[in-house]
Structure formats: structure tokens, C-alpha cells
């Protein structure tokens, strides 16, 4: 059984102009020790999805529908105190976006990690400290640096400290929202290696949320491409990157500068993502899509299983599959 199973999840933000459908019917599964990458552009709802999974919603956000089953137990009906006691940190933890700025600047880094431990479990302070040192060592930070304040850390070290904090209570699932944005490429490589080694050592599952196709390709077992609140393509990473079937995925890969290839002209996807307020029943990508036809403007394509374990939401995936042969 999958560790986390999400079914038909919908989360809307109430605004004065109407409801913003940030997460609009999402299904996926994450198995033990598996890394799911969610790729999307800014405003596609990927961070909203992350906070919905832990029910960390702003006051105007509401979960309209769906289930989030963790080990078979639905998190949606749980009360705030219950989810705090039973789920957050202990089973699922979040490395928030801009984690470098998520540390409190006036407390020592080690104390902040120890606090997460003592608040959620009944261990003594000295045990918590020992665990903190162990965690810092695990993420590749000198344990004596725990006495230091966040401003004495570099960006990469702060990110490592945040990861240490997320791992403090050995959760089964870590949601990492843009874990390497704003880091330099060599530091980013170090963080990627760290996350991979944690997965291999502790069988921790990860949901990796990023705008960077290549980063997700490097790390994840499964990949979901998100566009305007929905998954447009979802499946094994090798399938998604090897034989992409959705025009958006194909466009994204074409627009991405690949360091291995010789000099090439990049192709952009024309237009920009739609507003998510009361979208009409249509494929949300149709204004930007080279394959768009009448059906795309009137009927929303369902997420279909094109190949075993490879789902795509496009009316024309069969044509695309034929045209691209085995994939581009």
C-alpha cells in the first residue's frame, strides 16, 4: 500500500473576484522510499498543493473536496490539534519554500532544531541536544556549529539545517518545496546528493516541488507536470522525460537549456498561464497549445492512462504519440 494516497484533492482560495481554483482535482500516490517530483511554473498551484497536504492553509483557503490518505488514514477530516499531534513533524514534515529565511534569526540553529524535537516528543533536553548534533552531522554540518546563529551560516548550510529539522523526528514523508531555489549550482548539487543519500539510507519518501525540470529529473522516481491547478502528465520519470505526451511537457523540455546539447535556439511556449478564477470547462492549456482544436475549448480532457503507469490529460495524446514516434 502506498504511504500517501491523494484522491481528487481540491483547494480553493476565496477572493473578492471569485474562487481561485489553485488545486483542482489532483490524484497521486507516493510509495515508501519514493521520490515524487512536481514540476510547474509559478502560479500553477504547486506550493498550494504542498500546504494542502499538511492542511497548513491561509484563512481564505478551503479544501473543497478530496482525500489525503496517509497510511490509509484520511487527514482532511482531522482537527487542527489532532493533525498537529499525529502527523506534522512526526509523520510528514515540510521544508518550506525559501527555507533559508525560515530560521528564526534570534535563536541558535541547534536550539531551533532541538525545539522541534522537545515540542513533539517527551525526550529530555540533553537527549534532544544529542539528537540535534547527530542530525547536523547527518546533513553535513559540523555539529559544533549548532551554537551559531542563522546569520553565521551560509545559504547552503541554512538549507541543510532546515533539512535536519525536517528529519528530526524521522518522518516517513518529507515535502520539500523548492529546496534549492536561490542556491548556487555547486551548493545545489550538494543538497541534491544529501537528499538522495537520506532517501537511500532511511527509506524516507519525498515530495519534491520545483519549477526546475532538470532538478526533478535528477532526483525523482515519479514526476508530475502541473499546469493551472491540475496534473497534465504524471508517471515514471523515465517515461515523462523520455516519451512526453502532453504538449505542455514537450514545450517545457524544448524551452529548457540543456547543457549537454550543442548551441541551439530555444523555443518558448507562447502566451502565459490562465487565471484560475472560475475557469471554463476546457483544457486549460488550449490558448497556448499548438495542437488545440475545438474540442479543447469545450471539453476538459481527463487524466488517462496512456501507457502503464503513464497518465496524460490531453485529447490528442494518441496523435502526439504517433507523430513523435517513440518520443523526442
Amino acid at each position, binding site marked *: 500500500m502506498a504511504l500517501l494516497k491523494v484522491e481528487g484533492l481540491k483547494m480553493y482560495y476565496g477572493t473578492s473576484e471569485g474562487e481561485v481554483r489553485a488545486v483542482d482535482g489532483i490524484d497521486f500516490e507516493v510509495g515508501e522510499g519514493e521520490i515524487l517530483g512536481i514540476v510547474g511554473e509559478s502560479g500553477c498551484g504547486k506550493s498550494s498543493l504542498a500546504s494542502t497536504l499538511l492542511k497548513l492553509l491561509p484563512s481564505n483557503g478551503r479544501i473543497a473536496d478530496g482525500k489525503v490518505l496517509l497510511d490509509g488514514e484520511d487527514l482532511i477530516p482531522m482537527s487542527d490539534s489532532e493533525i498537529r499531534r499525529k502527523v506534522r513533524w512526526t509523520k510528514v514534515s515540510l521544508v518550506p519554500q525559501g527555507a533559508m529565511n525560515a530560521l528564526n534569526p534570534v535563536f541558535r540553529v541547534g536550539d531551533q532544531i532541538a525545539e522541534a524535537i522537545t515540542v513533539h516528543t517527551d525526550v529530555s533536553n540533553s537527549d534532544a541536544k544529542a539528537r540535534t548534533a547527530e542530525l547536523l552531522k547527518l546533513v553535513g554540518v559540523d555539529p559544533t556549529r549548532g551554537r551559531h546563529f542563522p546569520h553565521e551560516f551560509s545559504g547552503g548550510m541554512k538549507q541543510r539545517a532546515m533539512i535536519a529539522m525536517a528529519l528530526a523526528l524521522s518522518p516517513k514523508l518529507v515535502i520539500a518545496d523548492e529546496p534549492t531555489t536561490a542556491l548556487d549550482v555547486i551548493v545545489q548539487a550538494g543538497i541534491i546528493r544529501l537528499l538522495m543519500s537520506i532517501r537511500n539510507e532511511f527509506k524516507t519518501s519525498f515530495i519534491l516541488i520545483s519549477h526546475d525540470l*532538470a532538478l526533478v529529473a*535528477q532526483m525523482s522516481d515519479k514526476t508530475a507536470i502541473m499546469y493551472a491547478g491540475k496534473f497534465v502528465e504524471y508517471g515514471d520519470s523515465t517515461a515523462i522525460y523520455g516519451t512526453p505526451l502532453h504538449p505542455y511537457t514537450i514545450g517545457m523540455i524544448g524551452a529548457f537549456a540543456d*547543457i549537454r546539447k550543442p548551441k541551439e535556439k530555444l523555443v518558448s511556449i507562447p502566451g502565459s498561464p490562465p487565471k484560475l478564477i472560475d475557469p471554463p470547462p476546457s483544457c486549460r492549456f488550449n490558448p497556448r497549445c499548438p495542437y488545440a482544436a475545438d474540442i479543447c475549448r469545450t471539453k476538459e480532457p481527463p487524466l488517462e492512462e496512456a501507457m502503464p503507469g503513464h497518465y496524460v490529460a490531453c485529447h490528442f495524446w494518441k496523435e502526439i504519440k504517433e507523430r513523435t514516434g517513440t518520443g523526442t
Partner: protein
Amino acid sequence: MSDLNEGTRRELAKLKRRLTLARIVASLALFVWCGACLALELGYAPLSIGAQRAAYVNEGALFLIPAVATGFALHAVGNLRNAAQREDILGLKKKVSPVWGVLGLVFAFVVPGVVLFLSGGSAKKMDPPPAPPSNAVLMVDHLTKYFGVRRTFVDSLKRAPPGFVHAVDDVSFSIDRGEIFGLAGESGSGKTTVLRTALMLTPPSRGSIFFEGVDISRMSTGDLKKYRPKIQVVFQDPYESVNPRMPVFDIVSEGLFINHLVSSREEAVDRVLKVLSEVQMTPPEEYLYRYPHELSGGQRQRVAIARALVLDPDLILADEPVSMLDVSIRAEVINVLLAARDRRNISILMVTHDLALSKDMVDDLAIMYLGKIVESGPATEVVATPYHPYTHALTAAVPVPDPQAPKIRVLARGEIPTNIAPPPGCRFHPRCPFAQPVCSEKEPPLEEVAPGRKVACHFWKEAHESFMKGLDGPAGTNVAT
């Protein structure tokens, strides 16, 4: 004096003693102050001449020391003259020479003056002769930019040498007409400082910037105005670099009006429409009176590019022009810039941290590390077959959109150190898998090792070989991850 009575004489003697005391105190104060000034001057002495001049300029020492010292000196002279006058009134006229005051003035003006003159003079001698004007649109010649680190009074009393951020250190390159030149490196490598200095937003500490053969680095702001429209800039974040309260027409046309390039509003509208269609904002009429909040990120950045292009520049400086944009719209902004280059034959200096992107967009690429260029050459070659271990580490760390590709590797230990006290010798040696003792002693010069390819590394051959074999470093080493 004999006609004064005993009491008065005693009073006078007392007064004289006080005056003497006052004089001594004043002179002592003056000397202590001058000594402090001298100590400050000496504090700078161990630094290189360039650093000294930067120190003076950056910390305002040039102005402050003589000014404050003069204040003290004048005060002391005033005291003495006062005293002399009083003695005169009392009929006690005595030769009071204003020697202390004069000495103070000498210390205040002449000594710093001489020091400055000498350092300035020798700095001029040390500067390389101005390079002959070439066809390059922009030529950066031995550019150095230090920023002073804030220093407390206690630091200066301790004679701690003033600290400097060595943001850019002896960087030279040139950009030909119609060329796109890329500067790549991690944050803190000084690439943005090069751009800001090339724009003369901040004057260089040393070195020169030639724009079309003219040295603009020593120009007054007034003279520079003539060159401002010729050198335009596109900033990183289009959400911050366009004024949210101005419609597109105002944003784009502002430069035209400021530089008196148009005589009427109709003419300005005409030019703005033309440039908007050039940056693919079609139909341009529709965008003319829109505000930035009505535009997407990519459109805003294209407005920023239009604002630069409308002045018909020869050179555009682009600071990470697409790093804030989503992948799907990056290409359109890049293609707009490339098309503008092809159509107008302008030159572009592009600062970026994205090696994959620079390969696709840039003709020549220079890799910077801690304020120095470590490698330069044609972008495709530098990225595909790097010579410098640092470039090697950068390219190996870039992820590719293919799950079956070889995993990314970390080939440099730790993180970029501070450039307040950059490592001696080769600045990359503490992180380099190829480092040998010589690397911490001798700084490798940037040498041309193959046609068009320059590298600053003692062991570039070894590094290159190991790269071609797909190794992480010299045989037998294990690079920490």
C-alpha cells in the same frame, strides 16, 4: 612692571601660569590628534597603493582627516592669539609665536597632502599605460573594485588594517560590435559589480573602462551624460525594475524625453510603437497605456528591453535577464534580445549564473570566481570542454532534464569563501581537487592556452585530461560531497 603692586603681580603670575598650562594642553591635544591622523595614514601604508586610494576614497579619509585636524589647529591658534591679546592689554606683551598652530596646519594639510600626492603619483606610475583604442565597443582594462568594510574607531586605534571586499580584482575583457559576452559565476563572484562598474554606477578603484575607445572611467558625471543613452541596462527582476505607477508608454519614452531625442509627443509615440513591436508586444497600440501589473513577467521584461532599445544603444548590459522568469517564457525574452542584436548589431554584456543558458545565447564566455576571471573563451567550448577545475565543477553540477543521464557531481569542496580576505595564490585552491602546494603560493596568470581559450590554472592540463576521462579529480583522490 615695577609700578604694579605686589598683589597684582601675584595675580598676573597666576594668570600667566594658567595661560602656559592652556597652551601646553592645546598643543598636546593638537599633537595627539596629528598622531592619530598619522597612525591612520600608517595603517593604510602596508596596503597596496590601489587599496590605499580605495581606502581614502571609500572611507572619506581624504576629506575628513585634514578637515577635523584643521578645526583643531584653528582652535589652538585662536586660543594662543586670545592669550596674546589679553597679555597685550595687561601690558604684558611678549613674543607669542603661533608656531604650534602653524605646525598643526602643516600636519593637517601638508602631511596628508604629501602622502596622498606620493601615493597618487606612484599609483599613476603603477597603472598600465592606457590601452590603445580598439574596435571594441566595450573594453574593460585591469578593472579592480574594492569596497571598504566598515571600520570602528577602536579598529583604527588598534591599527588593524582596513578590510576590503575584493569584489573585482584585475579583470580585463573586451566586447566587439555585435558580440554577446557572458560573465558567469556563483553569487559573490563579482559579476554584477563588473556590470555596475562598466555602467559607471560606481567608479572603479583601479583600471579603466573604454567605451568605443574613450575612457569613461575618469569622466565627470556631466561628461558621462553624453554616453548614457549609448549604454543601456536590463535588470534582473522585471517586477522591480519597471515603475508600477507608469504606463508602458511613459516607461519606454522617459529616456527619449530626458535625452532630448524627440521633439514632440507624436514622435515619441511613433518610436515607442516601433520598439514595442520589435520586442514582440503586438499589437503595440494595445500595450501603450497598460500598467505593469496588467502584464505578465515576460512582458514586463520585454518592456524593460524596449526601454533600453528605444534609445538606440550600442551596448546593452543585461544582469541575469531571465533568471526570475519561468522556463516556458525565458526563451521568448532571450530570442527578443538575440533578434535585437542581429537587427541592430548591438553588443550585449550578459551576466548569468546559468551555464546551460549562456551556451545557447552567448558568443564568448568568461567564468568568474571571487573577483577574478578564471577561464574565458567561446561559450560552447568553455561549457563542453572546460579547462579550469572550477568550470569543470560548475558544469558537472548542472542538472539535465533526463532521469537516465549520469548523476550530477560535486567536484569542489565547501562553499565560496568571503572575498574580504581572499585565499592567497590561486583563489580556488582551498576547494580544488587538483590543488598542490604551489597553488597557495603563486597566483596563476590568465594565459591563452589554445586559440581563443584563456585559463588561469597551474594544472589546467591535468584538470582537462581528467575531465575528458570523466573523472572527479586527479587519480586516487576522493572529493568530499
